[in-house]
């Protein structure tokens, strides 16, 4: 059922973009941006469901939750950056898209430093 809604919105946006292209090209970016947002909103509550499932699973077992929250944060960041990158690529600005990518990569790496350090710790503890 949800899928039909998404496809409907996408097609409507497509038609509008084609229509607007000959009159006002700069509006096409707005329309594509907006459809992206609407579709994401539709999917968002499903996503919260999934994340709650993950969290409940993690609580059952002995995994410490900091790792999991970090992981979810990273997917969130990737999620947003991918949204921006595809919009920039769409409107032809590959340079900006690249910059966004680099920025998010650095942020993700900086966030995952504690994990890497804990990994090294464990390996060192392992070695005799």
């Amino acid at each position, binding site marked *: 059922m949800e899928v039909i809604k998404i496809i409907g919105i996408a097609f409507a946006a497509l038609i509008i973009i084609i229509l607007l292209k000959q009159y006002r090209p700069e509006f096409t970016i707005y329309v594509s941006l907006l459809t992206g947002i609407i579709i994401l909103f539709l999917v*968002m509550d499903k996503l919260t469901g999934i994340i709650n499932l993950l969290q409940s699973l993690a609580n059952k077992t002995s995994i410490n939750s900091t790792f999991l929250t970090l992981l*979810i944060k990273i997917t969130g*960041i990737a999620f947003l950056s991918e949204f921006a990158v595809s919009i920039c690529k769409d409107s032809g600005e590959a340079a900006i898209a690249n910059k966004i990518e680099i920025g998010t990569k650095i942020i993700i790496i900086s966030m995952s430093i504690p994990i890497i350090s804990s990994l090294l710790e464990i390996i060192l503890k392992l070695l005799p």
Partner: protein
Amino acid sequence: MDINLLFKIAAVGILVAVLHQVLVRAGREDQAMMTTLAGVVIVLTMVIKEISGLFNTVRTVFNL
């Protein structure tokens, strides 16, 4: 927060285009430019409201 927002933006776009055409034919290029800019700004504010909404929901979902 739904499809009608999309139609609203399309409508504003078309109206601005028509207005631009009319003003240009009436010989008032500068005003035509102004109306297009105004149209763009209005649509921009609408879209920005939506973007901020999206960012907030994503922040709460992924508790960034």
